[in-house]
């Protein structure tokens, strides 16, 4: 699935819930199911700042695609970062850089998109896009 499809898929999943509690229960489920990051990545270098909970995000380039891993000490944060991973991971750098994030709004988590939120969603997205930019440059250099 490409970025758009994954986002559409998530929107579809969330459309099943009509109250916040079901939504959060689902986020919590997703938080619990997040493939955990290797302990070696749980260092300050991979820490996303601006969150009340701690979130680590690592990225690797595998066959021209960016593979993200993440973890957090809070389950809801894990659930949120898991959404991002589902959309961004295993995608080519350009697609991540250009990704439209309106699905976050559509699934009713718009409030988390404010840069002043302490959940750090905006910081996570920034960091993931930054990784993509770095990898894109790397790929270009290799290609050249």
């Amino acid at each position, binding site marked *: 699935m490409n970025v758009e499809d994954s986002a559409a898929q998530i929107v579809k999943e969330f459309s099943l819930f009509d109250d916040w*509690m079901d939504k*959060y229960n689902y986020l*919590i489920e997703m938080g619990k199911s997040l493939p955990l990051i290797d302990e070696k990545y749980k260092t300050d270098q991979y820490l996303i700042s601006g969150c009340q*909970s701690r979130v680590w995000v690592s990225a690797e380039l595998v066959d021209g695609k960016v593979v993200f891993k993440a973890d957090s*000490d809070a*389950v809801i944060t894990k659930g949120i970062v898991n959404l991002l991973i589902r959309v961004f991971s295993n995608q080519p750098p350009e697609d991540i850089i250009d990704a439209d994030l309106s699905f976050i709004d559509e699934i009713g988590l718009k409030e988390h998109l404010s840069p002043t939120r*302490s*959940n750090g969603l905006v910081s996570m997205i920034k960091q993931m896009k930054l990784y993509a930019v770095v990898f894109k440059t790397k790929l270009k250099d290799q290609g050249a």
Partner: protein
Amino acid sequence: MNFDVQQIRKDFPALHQEIYGRPLVYFDNAATSQKPQVVIDRISEYYRTINSNVHRGVHHLSQQATDAFESSRNHIQQYINAQHAREVVITKGATDSINLVASSFGQKYLKQGDEVIISSLEHHANIVPWQVICEKTGAQLKVIPLTESSTLDLQAFQKMLNKKTKIVAVGHISNALGVVNPIREIIEMAHDFDIPVMVDGAQGIVHEKVDVQALDCDFYCFSSHKFYGPMGVGVLYGKTYWLSAMPPYQTGGEMIKSVTFEKTTYNDLPFKFETGTPNVADVIGFESAIKYIEDIGIAHIKTYEDDLLEYGIQKLKAIDGLRILAEGAPKAGVISFLLKDIHPYDAGTIIDKFGIAVRTGNHCAQPVMDLLEVPGSIRASMAFYNTREEIDRLVEAILKVREMFA
């Protein structure tokens, strides 16, 4: 008791709103309190009528504004029972007040090898300014440890006091845990060594009567916004002796007597420590808050709050897996707790959805959280306009949280 909480709630417009379709429960009072309508009205009225710059103005509005400003200062003086109005310095908040003391007192009295004592329960505002001035002067920062029951260890404190100790800076009531410190004893013990004591009263003044002469503290700091007044105003009470001896802090207009490019002479107290245009509107608004509190009576408020806190503690304690921090310690206004191993951020996010405002995190008191080996806590901080029904709603939300993260 003629304390009618439903009647009182009517005075606070912000309490009457719905959050996510549920009536707001505001349990974040230790962060900032809501304001009674009289305070809001007073600020508006000021801007609609006598608004102008104070001191040295010969025109009518300026004289009216100056009168109102200075009479607010006098009212604050009376409320805390300071000996003179000149001992009441207006600042922008408790943090500003503490920075003033750390900087001005420190510059004058601290040198290499001296010691400053703070406690383990302090808010960052009463830690970092002392770290900074200690680093600048070469003094050493000492920290009163905690007993098993999370109260300050007075025996250890006794042993820390010595000739090198130049000042003790300690909180009145801990914002993170609600622990009420034995400041009377601390002041007496320090005074036995002729060491001055600064009390960070940001949470203290809110929950009990403060009489600075009876306490005999040398400095007492607090913020208006936590005490039902507007934001942007703080108070530094200081004994004349110290304030006179200390050099000015910020400089500029108002605080000077005469200026040439070569030499500047400073003004008398309290103006020596007040520079720039003061926040007249909010100082006057703060006076209204104090009047409002006086009308109800801080003693009545304390009785009601203590009862509510006790109710809250009993109810929360009964929840399986809930752990109240500093449980045995004497407390005011605050229940700081953890629910099983659920991250406070997770709990807070869900509690919020029930329309209940609690705070989560380290509450700007990271060191005590580290000492207690917790990543932070969930804090419900209460005011006299909160009710038992609101605590019941919190309990309900907590039960739901426990269920969701099971």
